[in-house]
């Protein structure tokens, strides 16, 4: 079976999440990560609108108007869930209590700086919680397709407004797993059926290529 890009990305990132972690997933591909967590791995998922213990979408007819995710869509609360106000929610985020956040990206530069909240003159939705999450979470993982309309999204320097001065820790695309340590983008894994040369060709930033680069297992 050929896996689509979003599934490859979500499945690979799911492997980074371990029992007991407090995790915040952004919208889009990041939300799909929750679908690939093994049953014996128990994660505390936070919705920044004030919920820890976010569960799957409710069965038909079981939605509660006051139980929603950050997009305003109905969710469930798992046993052991708790709710809180927005100051507490962002205290958790900014205060370094969130173990992992998974977010989307418009651009990431070679040093791991992220732009993911606006395209001047085109798309000005507001940063919502993105700036706080990138600034405060213990680990920031980016989930994104490697290119947009054939153009690399990993660039030498971001041309779009940055989300934070804090670099991301890891980027997972359908083509690659890249770690950002000491300001360098290091290729750790290539996607299913993808060669190192293909990753390099689809990336506009300088990549460090270690001796051993493994194939992504999803």
């Amino acid at each position, binding site marked *: 079976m050929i896996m689509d890009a979003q599934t490859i990305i979500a499945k690979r990132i799911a492997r980074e999440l371990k029992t007991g972690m407090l995790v915040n997933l952004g919208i889009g591909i990041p939300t799909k990560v929750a679908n690939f967590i093994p049953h014996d791995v128990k994660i505390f998922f936070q*919705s*920044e*609108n*004030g*919920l820890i213990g976010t569960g799957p979408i409710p069965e038909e007819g079981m939605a*509660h*108007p*006051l*139980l*929603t995710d*950050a*997009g*305003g869509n109905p969710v469930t*609360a798992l046993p052991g869930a708790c*709710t*809180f*106000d*927005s*100051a507490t929610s*962002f*205290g958790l*985020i*900014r205060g370094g209590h969130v173990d992992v956040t998974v977010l989307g990206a418009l651009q990431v530069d070679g040093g791991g700086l992220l732009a993911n909240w606006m395209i001047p003159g085109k*798309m*000005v*939705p*507001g*940063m*919502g*919680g*993105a*700036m*706080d999450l990138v*600034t*405060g979470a213990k680990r920031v993982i980016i989930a994104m397709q490697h290119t947009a309309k054939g153009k690399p999204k990993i660039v030498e320097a971001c041309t779009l*407004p*940055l*989300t*934070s*001065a804090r670099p991301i820790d890891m980027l997972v695309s359908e083509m690659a797993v890249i770690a950002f340590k000491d300001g360098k983008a290091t290729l750790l894994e290539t996607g299913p059926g993808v060669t190192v040369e293909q990753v390099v060709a689809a990336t506009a930033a300088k990549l460090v290529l270690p001796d051993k680069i493994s194939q992504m297992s999803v």
Partner: protein
Amino acid sequence: MMKTIPITDAVALIPDGATLMIGGFMGVGTPERIVDELVRQGKQNLTVIANDTAVPGRGIGKLVDAGLIARTVASHIGLNPETQKQMIAGKMAVDLIPQGTLIERIRSGGCGLGGVLTPTGIGTIVEEGKQKVEVNGLQYLVETALRADFALINAFLADYLGNLSYALTGRNFNPIIAMAADTTIVCADHIVPVGLIAPDHVVTPAPLVDYLIMNG
């Protein structure tokens, strides 16, 4: 001392040009009846401080639809195309603020603080025009306190004294804005006798509430 009040009288207290903090997150936990009455009375030139502007036809989105907002102070407007349209057309000013910074600025306003120091926004366009300070070797932005003329609250339970509790994700900005305005008006899903909300379950203490809107 809190007063119970019919909804038409409560909203009549709000003049054109008022600054409103409105509870809710994508319309969840927004006092929908107050919003409807603001639209019915056609309040003009409002400044709205809230997390977002929901979607057209819901919560704060109804105020946007009716063209009643002159300025929005929010963290996210991306899910309301009408807000974006009015912003681009120059009909509505929009200040976009990181969500954690927005709620802390409001909390400061309600707690007698001049503002907060936050690392969020350092090295981004958010820092433009703001004071930066170094504390223990780390850089922070000075983010000043926000207050409003009115806080419009949706609680799940209110007792006859004005003690409030909230349900699930309907809490969000509500208890924070309840402290940050000159006048706090509450629309509760259920009004219950005093004593029914256990002291440990009261989130917003009664003395913070000025008006509780009557059922009906």
